[in-house]
């Protein structure tokens, strides 16, 4: 027995050392000088060492195995008050550099407890010094409280955004194991129900809280607010692979325990290093309360699952269930929120998410806890929950309660799959906390996740030798180059077989759940026995790892939907789980009949929308129904719906054009193409809404909170940091458009301000732009630095291709290069300034002409041709792929660096949890430029594509002849709505509501930069985003602009496919592009290049 144990320890040791050796080996190999342009004002500083410190790959099980001879601690060390935090002394430059990472904390006296506590912000480190008397395995207990809002208005790093609090635990400058890298501390969310005059939530007769109702008597999803409280908790694995508190090996002597903030601020009262009590078993529990009786004459208590006391995340909220006639409450017409949880989104199915209920017990004694639940997702498996009563596990088995799969609603006593449990409850109020956990599957899944990480690593190591298309018949000499991979594969095969067997025992059958494990095991066996088969099977290996990841992701989810939880005297009869035939039929029939009378159009509105109100603003959106509902609620809450009626309509995409043509279009459209509609005069220019008009609107309309309605210029300044680039794609510049006529009416400029032919057709509300994504772990492994310039990228590509890896480029590269080198996309009349004989005599008219943009494309210029050439070289010279699946290759590590839209962030968060924390996005590499004063700087420009909200022509159909656009009441109302919609508060709330609806990975890409940064990014992410946002560049609006992208694309493929010379390929299209631009400009009466040349007298 002892020998076997030692042996396994030896293997682990061997593995760890070999991995470490490899790491050093590769670092040494690639630490060759990567030419790095270090500039003074460079803001992206990513130190390799700082990253390496966090990239620990030891797992907790390895860690335990490594220290299995060290005994557990038997005593608690004295509590360390958070106010006694520790900052290392500055002795030399190195320590000074380190101290910089420490957070700017505040010691505050807590109002509730009178304790001195520590407020720590969402970034930086906090350390505590602990004196350990005896070498042992210690647990760490912490008393914390989530912070809400901001505690100091003068700083920005202490804002709370309501997402998970995340910390990294570092002991003596090292993260002890992988699990300590992501520690979650939950928050406390409570629903806002209908309040009575005393500001108490109103309960119905059945004890269920009242939700707000909309106009159609549908219950509306309650908003949530935070109800923070002080909690004492052990530090545990946030993925719940290990249900006992995590242990840390501390040797005798002094140690520094550091919490590095990854996300969100929190308050800490104290930490305690010590040991955790064992939880008693069910048998002991029964014995302990052996004298207790089953209470008689006590009625059962029904806990309505949809109205919890608290939840851990705001995304866990009440849902409507119509599948069963006896789900309580149920209504044939209205949609009632009668259940909680389920499979959609991240609602109470990720391990760690919990729901807490309050229950009032009438008499001491034994009770059964009986939920009515539905688990129709995890086929053949079970979902697990742990139950804490009043914050404690009543007995060990309550840590892994099982909810078996069934194709309908079920009513069962709480059980662990083997036996039903009863609970001893005393008279009075109790809390029941159901937490999603991996339960009995945790060991198996934990093991599989470890195997997956290792296999991914092996795959990459093999790939570095063979490339992604290995030759079956080459002898790659794996046994010489990577012997550790071969032995590792053998070991993982054994582990897989073991796990597969365990899994089979757990679920009782061999089936779809074990088949993927067996397949990989078979493949590993084949590959490790005969290394010549590795190359041939690499493709299979990759796809198997991929499907293992997918399987793991779906099996880790613990979906469960609850209708109610009954607490009734033990042994009482259980209620029925499902409706009988007649009940079902009555329910379906009633629903069917009522469906004829339900108004599906007025989305979630609290009041009836008056269709006949001539000044009501009709807004069309094409997003999902949920988003529309959120918008409706926001309009009801924070927009004055009495003086400005807003009629929100959810329509199918593509309806706008025919509707506008027929004159029945909306007043405000959320997703029209500003270019197309703008040049065709179907949009009301928004820059006409200036002082005088807006003053008029302000007289008439007051928004809640006395918010002033802003002018166009103010909106730009207040909500968009005066960033012109956001407005460039929405603005037309043309002197011929100073005023325009339609239907015999002339619309003039107003306010006495000459607008000089500048018309802005929309306010941006979302924006997308490319950024650079890279894998931190691989960069550390290869000793690479994050590129600052494109020259750095070349060096990186060389290092990557030596290791058979690639980089992903976007086809927007031409534009990126051009913008970064300061070359415009279009030619403007200004480019021909030199042709004026006497520049001083330029008249007002010709000065206006000078500003005309888009008379020709700029692709023919030398700079642009150069940019195009450089762009194609990535694909031709360096052979980077044109077509690829970014998320997949990024996750396997084949493509550790890529240019991609920053919104891919959301996808990666959900799709690739196994690389969480191992990647980040930074601003694009740039082009080195020299500014006017001769200083060098790097231009990181990125082309942004905004989506705009626009005021359509229908908004001014109440105008009489000779009246000004802005005299229209409806247009004024519409402007009030538009400027409200893009305001920081509105956009921020919309983002929050989206996160509340779909989970933290559903970040909203708002164009309001303050609202964007106000979401729950980590400090680093926020910094990178803000930097990139500052170097946004918009592509100007111009008639015929589609043709430029089209022909650039053609030229690109001609170069990549047929090896044409880049500049030649592009030049071949220039005339066609300019021809089309001139034609299109002429069609709409814009100044064309030909006309302009004629005026200047230039021969062409």
């Amino acid at each position, binding site marked *: 027995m002892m020998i076997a144990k030692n042996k396994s320890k030896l293997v682990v040791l061997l593995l760890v050392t070999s991995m470490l050796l490899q790491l050093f080996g590769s670092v040494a190999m690639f630490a060759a000088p990567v030419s790095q342009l270090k500039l003074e004002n460079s803001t992206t500083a990513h130190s390799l060492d700082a990253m390496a410190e966090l990239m620990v790959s030891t797992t907790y099980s390895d860690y335990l195995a490594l220290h299995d001879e060290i005994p557990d601690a038997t005593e608690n060390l004295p509590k360390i008050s958070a106010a006694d935090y520790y900052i290392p002394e500055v002795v030399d430059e190195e320590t000074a550099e380190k101290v910089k990472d420490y957070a700017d904390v505040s010691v505050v006296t807590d109002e509730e407890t009178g304790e001195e506590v520590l407020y720590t912000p969402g970034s930086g480190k906090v350390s505590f010094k602990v004196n350990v008397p005896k070498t042992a395995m210690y647990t760490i207990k912490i008393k914390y409280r989530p912070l809400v809002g901001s505690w100091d208005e003068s700083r920005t790093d202490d804002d709370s955004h309501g997402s998970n609090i995340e910390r990294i635990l570092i002991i003596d400058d090292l993260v002890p194991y992988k699990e300590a890298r992501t520690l979650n501390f939950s928050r406390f969310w409570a629903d806002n129900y209908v309040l009575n005059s005393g500001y108490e939530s109103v309960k119905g007769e059945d004890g269920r809280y009242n939700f707000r109702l909309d106009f159609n008597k549908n219950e509306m999803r309650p908003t949530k607010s935070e109800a923070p409280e002080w909690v004492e908790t052990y530090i545990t694995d946030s993925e719940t692979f290990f249900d006992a508190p995590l242990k840390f090996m501390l040797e005798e002597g002094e140690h520094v325990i550091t919490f590095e903030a990854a996300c969100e601020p929190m308050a800490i009262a104290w930490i305690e290093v010590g040991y955790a009590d064992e939880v008693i078993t069910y048998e002991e529990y029964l014995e302990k309360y052996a004298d207790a009786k089953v209470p008689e004459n006590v009625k059962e208590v029904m806990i309505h699952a949809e109205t919890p006391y608290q939840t851990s995340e705001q995304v866990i909220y009440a849902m409507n269930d119509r599948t069963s006639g006896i789900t309580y409450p149920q209504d044939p017409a209205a949609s009632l929120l009668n259940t909680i949880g389920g499979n959609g989104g991240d609602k109470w199915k990720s391990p760690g998410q919990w729901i807490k209920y309050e229950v009032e017990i009438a008499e001491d004694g034994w009770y059964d806890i009986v939920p009515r639940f539905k688990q129709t997702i995890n086929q053949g498996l079970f979902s697990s929950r742990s139950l804490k009563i009043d914050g404690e596990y009543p007995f060990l088995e309550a840590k892994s309660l099982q909810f078996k799969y069934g194709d309908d609603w079920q009513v069962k006593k709480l059980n662990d799959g083997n036996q039903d449990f009863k609970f001893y409850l005393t008279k009075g109020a109790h809390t029941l906390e159901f937490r999603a956990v991996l339960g009995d599957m945790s060991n198996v899944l934990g093991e599989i996740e470890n195997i997956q990480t290792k296999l991914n690593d092996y795959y990459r190591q093999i790939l570095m030798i063979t490339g*992604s*298309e290995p*030759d*079956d018949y080459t002898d790659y000499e794996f046994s010489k180059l990577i012997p550790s991979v071969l032995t590792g594969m053998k070991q993982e095969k054994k582990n897989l077989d073991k796990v597969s067997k365990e899994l089979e025992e757990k679920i009782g059958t061999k089936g779809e759940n074990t088949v993927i494990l067996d397949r990989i095991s078979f493949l590993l066996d084949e590959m490790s026995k005969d290394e010549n088969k590795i190359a041939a099977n690499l*493709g299979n290996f990759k796809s198997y790892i991929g499907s293992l990841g997918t399987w793991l992701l779906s099996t880790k989810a613990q979906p469960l939907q609850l209708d109610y939880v009954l607490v009734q005297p033990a042994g009482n009869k259980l209620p029925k789980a499902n409706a009988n035939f007649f009940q079902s039929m009555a329910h379906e029939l009633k629903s069917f009949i009522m469906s004829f009378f339900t108004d599906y159009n007025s989305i979630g509105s609290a009041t009836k929308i008056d269709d006949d109100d001539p000044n009501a603003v009709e807004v069309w959106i094409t997003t999902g129904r949920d988003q529309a509902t959120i918008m409706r609620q926001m309009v009801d809450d924070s927009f004055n719906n009495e003086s400005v009626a807003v009629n929100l309509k959810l329509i199918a995409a593509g309806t706008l*054009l025919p509707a*506008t*043509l027929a004159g029945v279009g909306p007043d405000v459209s959320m997703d029209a193409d500003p270019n*197309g*509609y703008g040049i*065709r*005069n*179907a949009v009301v220019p928004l820059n006409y809404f200036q002082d005088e008009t807006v003053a008029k609107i302000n007289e008439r309309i007051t928004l809640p909170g006395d918010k002033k309605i802003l002018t166009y210029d103010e909106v730009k300044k207040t909500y968009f940091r005066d960033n012109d680039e956001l407005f460039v794609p929405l603005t037309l510049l043309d002197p011929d458009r100073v005023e325009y006529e339609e239907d015999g009416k002339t619309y003039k400029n107003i306010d006495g301000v000459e607008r000089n032919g500048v018309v802005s057709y929309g306010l941006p509300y979302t924006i997308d732009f490319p950024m650079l994504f890279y894998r931190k772990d691989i960069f550390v492994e290869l000793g690479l630095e994050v590129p600052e310039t494109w020259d750095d990228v070349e060096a990186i590509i060389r290092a990557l291709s030596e290791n058979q890896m690639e980089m992903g480029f976007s086809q927007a590269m031409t534009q990126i290069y051009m913008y970064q080198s300061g070359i415009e996309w279009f030619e403007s009349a200004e480019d021909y300034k030199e042709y004026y004989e006497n520049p001083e005599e330029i008249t007002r008219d010709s000065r206006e002409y000078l500003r005309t943009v888009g008379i020709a494309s700029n692709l023919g210029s030398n700079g642009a041709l150069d940019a195009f050439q450089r762009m194609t070289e990535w694909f031709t010279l360096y*052979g980077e*792929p*044109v*077509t*690829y*699946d970014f998320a997949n290759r990024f996750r396997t590590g084949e493509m550790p660096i890529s240019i991609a839209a920053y919104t891919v962030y959301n996808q990666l968060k959900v799709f690739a949890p196994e690389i969480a924390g191992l990647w980040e996005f930074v601003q694009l590499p740039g082009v080195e430029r020299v500014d006017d004063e001769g200083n060098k700087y790097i231009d990181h420009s990125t082309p942004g594509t905004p989506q705009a909200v626009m005021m359509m022509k229908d908004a001014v159909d109440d105008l009489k002849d000779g009246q000004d656009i802005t005299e229209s009441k409806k247009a004024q109302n519409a402007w009030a709505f538009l400027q409200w919609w893009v305001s920081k508060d509105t956009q921020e709330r919309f983002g929050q509501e989206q996160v509340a609806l779909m989970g933290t990975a559903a970040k909203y890409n708002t164009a309001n930069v303050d609202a964007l940064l106000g979401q729950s990014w980590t400090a680093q992410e926020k910094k990178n985003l803000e930097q990139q946002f500052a170097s946004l560049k918009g592509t100007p609006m111009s008639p*015929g602009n*589609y043709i430029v992208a*089209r022909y650039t*694309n*053609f030229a690109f*493929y*001609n170069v*990549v*496919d*047929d090896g044409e010379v880049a500049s030649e390929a592009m030049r071949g299209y220039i005339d066609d592009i300019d021809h089309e631009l001139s034609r*299109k400009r002429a*069609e*709409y009466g814009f100044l064309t290049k030909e006309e302009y040349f004629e005026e200047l007298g230039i021969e062409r």
Partner: protein
Amino acid sequence: MSEKAVMQQQAAPKLRKDMTKWEWTLREMKVNKVGYFMVAPYYIVFMLFTIVPVFVSLFLSLTQFNMLEAPVFVGVDNYIRLLLDDDTFLLAVENTLVFATMTGPVSYLLSLMFAWFINELTPKIRAVVTLIFYAPSISGQVYLIWQTLFSSDQYGWVNGTLMKLGIINGPILWFQDTDYIMTLVIVVALWTSLGTSFLSFIAGFQVVDKSLYEAGSVDGVKNRWQELWYITLPVMKNQMMFGAIMAITQSFGFGAIVTALCGFPSVDYCAHTIMHHLDDYGGQRWEVGYASAIATILFAVMIGSNLLVNKLLSKVGK
């Protein structure tokens, strides 16, 4: 007087002297009002949604119309530009004709051949084989399988296989490379076009009266070719007409598959059809006047080819 002229004279209806032709028509309509009433729903819908739009489109083709502002009359400018100053249109015409030949006559003859062969099989096997041939056109978007096969990714099936065999070094961008687009699209087009006409031929072969073959053999039909030409085909002329018209409309309306496979527009317009050109101007550039001119020409070409096919089919069995 020729024989034909005499027959025409005899067939001409005798007009009554006491009322004009118009009055006569009105009276007949009153008598048969039930009939008119019964065809009315279809007739009205047909007028409103087919005939009227055709004329509106004819009118719009003489204007400049950007869909949001009132159309401006420009005479035949659109036609002049289309026929004399639009290289892409000429390319589109060429491509359309190539596709039309491939998916029209070629696929038509192929369908006929396949139908003839399959007709020789026993009923049970015939049912299975028919399903196999007809499947691509039932399951609408199934041509997207070609996108998976010929994916530009190095992990695409064809690219992967070719790279493994050492035939190519890097992935080929099949649907973005002017060298391959046409060939691939034609193959896919042929594969999907064995649809309706094929099925109508199978049906046609089933209705031929067996006794005709017997009579034919008595009258001296020597081989299967003669049987096909003199007996089978003349009997199933109706089915052939139906198949031909379907094939023509399909072949000229060809475009969706190209868009799905190569994107819109295809690189260098190399698989651009008239349909695409129409879409480009109508949908992307919002020039409905010009798009209508394209549509009008397409309409004329279709009518012309229908007449031609009618002529050709009348030669069958002669």
